[in-house]
């Protein structure tokens, strides 16, 4: 049983009593292709999960998913993906890959507590709370932001976008 099979089993079990939900799982033609789970609520809200070995689980959710778009969120494990799917189904909140998130919301997206992130950074919980205030970002050093993002398990990437359409990554380190 691979990670996708485990997630499918968990999702089917968790929502077995939900008569307002339908599930469809699709497996790839090629062994190394993408696997798919789609959950559709009667009200038209859709949660989709994609999995590919070495990539992890990609998730996108909403009422108006557009053909050819990418996933909004990526999770490394079946457990993390399942927790997120359950959260999305229960709250009905769409994913928002294209929208900017405040730092506190970014932490919550990855289901991390302030005390745990603060411990990883070697600062106090109140210190992290201060950093997460939107106004703090205006004066935050890039290195501090890089450490904060790293403590969430991510990597800070800064891009410069130009009117003619060019986009280049700025070296952070």
């Amino acid at each position: 049983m691979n990670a996708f099979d485990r997630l499918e089993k968990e999702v089917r079990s968790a929502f077995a009593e939900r008569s307002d939900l339908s599930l469809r799982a699709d497996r790839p033609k090629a062994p190394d292709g993408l696997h798919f789970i789609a959950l559709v609520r009667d009200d038209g809200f859709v949660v989709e999960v994609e999995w590919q070995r070495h990539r992890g689980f990609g998730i996108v959710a909403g009422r108006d998913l557009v053909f050819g778009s990418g996933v909004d969120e990526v999770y490394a494990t079946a457990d993390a993906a399942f927790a997120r799917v359950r959260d999305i189904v229960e709250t009905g909140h769409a994913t928002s890959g294209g929208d900017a998130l405040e730092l506190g919301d970014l932490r919550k997206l990855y289901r991390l507590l302030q005390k745990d992130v603060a411990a990883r950074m070697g600062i106090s919980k109140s210190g992290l709370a201060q950093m997460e205030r939107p106004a703090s970002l205006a004066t935050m050093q890039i290195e501090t932001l890089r450490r904060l993002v790293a403590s969430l398990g991510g990597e800070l990437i800064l891009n410069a976008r130009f009117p003619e359409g060019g986009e280049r990554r700025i070296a952070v380190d």
Partner: protein
Amino acid sequence: MDRNERFALFIRELNGAAPAATLEEARTLLETVLNRIEDLHSGADFNPSNWRNDGRLYPPQDDREIVSGLDGVRTFKTVGHYVSFAANGAIRIVALRSAFDDNRFG
């Protein structure tokens, strides 16, 4: 143009295009029409290896092909939709919500 507007334009142009005669032609037609619209209107560079949403719409790549169960038909899963190409050049795009008749819980 937002993504919904671009998708609507893509469908209009696909419907107005000369029909394809083979599966390969159909797939190329879809790719050509969508990539042209996205080059013009998405503002994002073509990078189909991007898995995360980069604001651009992509034709289905080979690793999105699923088992279709139909001879002479290749079906691909893309966000919110299935797209199938038939040996006679037909293209069928089905919204995910329409593909759920027999999959209900409860």
